[in-house]
Structure formats: C-alpha cells, structure tokens
C-alpha cells in the first residue's frame, strides 16, 4: 500500500516537474509547481515526516506560490504566448547551473548511501524514537531550539536582511 502510494506521489511529482518546464502558460507552470510541492509533501507523509509535509504545503504551496501567482497575474504574463525563453549563452549557463546543482545532489546522496547510519537503518530508528517521545512537532522543535539554535537564529536574520533589502529596493524615495 505504502509502495503504491509512493509510486503515485513520485509519478505526480516528476510529471508535474516536467510540466513546470514545458507548460507554455506561466500560470500553468505555476500550478504544476504547486502539484509538485503537494506530491513531495505526500512523500514526506509516507516517511512519517508529517510536520515537514504540513510546513511544505503551508509555506511553499500555500504562501510563496500564491505570491508568485500574484506577480504573474500583475505582470499579465499569461495572455501573450510568445517565447520568452532566452536562447544561446543563457541556455548554456542555465544548463551548467542546474547540472552543477544536480551533480552536488548526486554526490551527497551517494555519500549518505555508504554511511553506516543509512546501511543499518539506525537513523530511521532514532527518528522513530524521537517521534514517539516528542510527537510530530516536538521531534523537529527540540533539536531546532536546542542544538541548532544559533544557525536557526542566523537564518532568521538572513531572511530579515532580505526583507529589508527588498523594501529598500522597492521604495522610490528612501
């Protein structure tokens, strides 16, 4: 049953991801992206990461993509179906960037496949124990606010800087 669901979500995720790239209409691309995010959230649920799944949908599918939609509609990109894909050197650069990121991902995944935690499945046991003891939210919240509190706060400051920067850039007379 779980395998069946996994293949269903995985098919939707990959199919929609291809849809994001090939859709002619920007709003279509965006809806495919939402479908991808939702399908990945489904895979998270299959992995017992309920909290991640909820946050994925609330933050990415429900808030950030709505802002994307807002911008696309305001720029009225959806009604003229011209090719706005830049060719030549741009496509080479885009290919190199995505290729590089994909390479990094494969390298990292290859590494974790060799790690003892992955081979013995002890990482999964630790997660199961944390879920049983602290619940779906506590299992994430405890390490986040104890062991990783400094990186967590730093990320918060990073986001704040981004917001301040965007406000400064958007304002005409500062």
């Amino acid at each position: 049953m779980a395998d069946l669901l996994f293949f269903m979500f995985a098919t939707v995720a990959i199919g929609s991801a291809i849809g994001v790239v090939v859709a002619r209409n920007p709003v279509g691309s965006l809806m495919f992206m939402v479908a991808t995010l939702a399908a990945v959230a489904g895979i998270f649920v299959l992995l017992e990461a309920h909290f991640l799944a909820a946050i994925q949908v609330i933050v990415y599918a429900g808030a950030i993509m709505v802002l994307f939609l807002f911008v696309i509609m305001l720029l009225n990109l959806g009604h003229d179906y011209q090719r706005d894909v830049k060719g030549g050197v741009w496509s080479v650069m885009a290919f190199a960037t995505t290729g590089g990121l994909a390479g990094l991902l494969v390298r990292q995944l290859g590494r974790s496949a060799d790690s003892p935690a992955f081979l013995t499945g002890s990482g999964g046991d630790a997660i199961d124990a944390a879920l049983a003891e602290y619940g779906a939210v506590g299992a994430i919240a405890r390490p986040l606010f104890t062991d990783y509190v400094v990186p967590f706060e730093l990320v918060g400051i990073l986001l704040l800087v981004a917001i301040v920067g965007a406000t400064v850039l958007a304002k005409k007379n500062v």
Partner: protein
Amino acid sequence: MEPISGLAALLSSSVKIALVFSGVMLVVAYTTLAERRVSAFIQDRIGPNRVGPFGLLQPIADGIKNLLKEETSPAAASRTFFILGPILAMVPAMVTFAVIPFAAPLPTPWGVVDMIVADVPIGILYILAFSSLGVYGVVLGGWASNNKYAFLGALRASAQMVSYEVALGLSLIAVFMLAGSVTLTEMVWQQQQLDLWFAFPLSLAFLLFVISAFAETNRLPFDMPEAESELVTGYHTEYSAMKFSMFFIAEYSHMLTASALMATLFLGGWDIPFATWDDAFWYEGVLIRGFGPDGVPLAASPAWWKTLFTLGVFALKTGFFLVFFIWVRWTLPRFRYDQVMQLGWKVMLPTSLAYIMVMAASMLILDQVGVAYGFAYGLALTGVSLVCTLLFIFYLDDDRIMKGAGARQAASDPVPTEGGD
C-alpha cells in the same frame, strides 16, 4: 475497552467518512437557508418560506435549479483554469473537517471508535495547510474569467488571504503553548483537564482568531474579493449554474470548518461544561477520563448516549458560531481595502506577536513558581489575557464607541475632519 482495529476499523472509517461528508454537505445546504432567513429577520422581512414548511426544502430547490441551469463559459476565458477554479476552491474546503473531533468515543462490540475521521499527528496544521490551498480556487477562477472585476477580486483575495493567514497562525501559537500539542483531540482533553475553556485563559488569541477567520472565509466585513458594490460579484462574476454553486459550497463549508474549529480550540469542542463524566482521552493505550489525586489514571466508560450528548453539545457550539458569522454579515458594513491591509499587517500581526511574548512569559513564571496545570493556572492566565484584551480593544476603539460621538465632537471643536492624511 480496546480501540477498534483491523477490518472493523477500516469499515468504521469508511462509514465515518461517508457520514461526515454528507453531514457537512447537509449543514452547508441549511446554512444557506439560515443565512437568508436570519438576514430577513435582521432586515425585518420574512425570507424564503414557500418551499416546504418554513421554507425547509428551499436548499433542495436551489440545488436542483443550479444543477439544471445552463453552464455558460465566457469566450475569452482560458478553459482549463476556468473549470479548475471551482474544483480547487471546493476540494480543500471539503477535506479540512476530517481532523476535527466531533463527539466522545463511541463503544461498539468490535472496539471503541473515535469520533474523528483522521486523528493525524499534526492536527490543526493539516487544516492550515489545506485552507492555504483554498486561495488557488478563488485566484484562478478570477484570473481565468478574463474579466477585470473578477480579476480584481482574485488579486484582492490572494493578498487578503495570505495576509490574514499570518495572524491566524500566530494567534494559534498561544493555544499550542497552553495545550502543549497540535492535535485537536488533545486540545479538547487539555481543556477538560484545565476545567476551563481556552476562550478564557487565551481571550485575546480567541479574538484575533475570530477576526482572522472572518478574513480567511471572505465573509463580511472582509468580503473584499466579492464586494458587490465595487466588483459586481468579484471573482465569480463570470460563473453560473453548478460552478457558481461550487464556489458557494466552498465558502459555506469554510465557514462551517472555521466555526467547528473555533468551538474546538476555544470552547472545549465536544466537552460538556461543568461535567467530567463525558471526558475521554487515549492515554498510553487506555481510554481515561482523568487522573486521581495521586496521579493514577481513571478509566473512562464510553457509552452511546455520552457520544450522542457530546455530539449535540458540539453541534450547539458550532451552530452558535455559524449564526454569529451570519449575524455579523448583516450587521457590519464592509471595510475599505486599505483598511483591511492595515488591520492585517499593522494591528493583528504585531498584537499577536506581543501576545505570544506575554503569554509565554506568564506560563514560564507560573511553571517556575510551581503552579500545577489546572483551574488556578487557567485563572491566572485569564487575568493576564483579560488585561491584554482590554488594552487591545481600547486601542482599536480609539475612543470611538467608548466615549461616543458627542465627546469626540467636543474634543475636536468646531467640526471633526474626516479621512486625515
């Protein structure tokens, strides 16, 4: 008493899904009738009373009419998204009710059945996730119609719903802190343990949640996306027949879910006030109704009449909020768009953040002093919250109602200027 398991659990889940789904649809249908009858009552009219006794068959007549009407599709609309809009509006609205517990567990010969469709470990976050997806229906519907009024409605909807989601989520944090959990079954249990509904120790969170819920369901005074007097009917201007009806079903089931949620989070859910015989919770695999003086769990004895009673109490509380929604709609005028945004970002957001700080500090102090989680704990928090709520109301009121128009006129003699900058 063992929880139900195996094939019986699968069957009971299917039955619960069918019953809850048809229950939601039925309540939605009759809320539309209630809306029309209550509005008629408030405006000193009679309202629809021709179809069946007291007009009780009116929703069925409306449903048949909407099914049989001709579907129109604007020539310039983008077809796929025009059809996708109502679907995306309706589906999230229908599935959110699944995590709300609506009665005490029901004993059956095969085991005890929880009166909740899906008790997921993330509880209310599931509702937040799906209701945040509900905005796509409104936005896509308005955009795909290729009509400027529909499009303006869609733009307003996206901005408004994203803004108030923030305040809604933040107002819930105080509830999470007090309950120590995000699942709704445990929140009901914690309110039973506290002997106090969360509406009292967390009164400001309750107020903020109610305001945000009105904005999230696009109900007056926050019906910017529709705003008949400005945008024809906003995002569903171009829709007719069943597609139009689906937007309406979505709006009313959002209203129902929001009402049930407010009843569960702040008014104790299916808990019967001033009684402990109905309390029930799965504690380490055993259904208990509380703890003895020495911390020993006391076993609960579920019964069908307890389930029925608690279901009735839950329906009463939810019904109260549904009538409240309707009442407010026919009492308050609509906000201006900039006022909605100002209230959302400049008032609700800072207030909810400050309230989280105050409540977290109060709970920390109470824990440090050593007050046990119980009635006294709740009373202390009630006092703190009451002060916060009064300050908030006085700030928002800005001397308008509290002092009255006469005092204002006297203060700003000769004539008060409107609008300001």
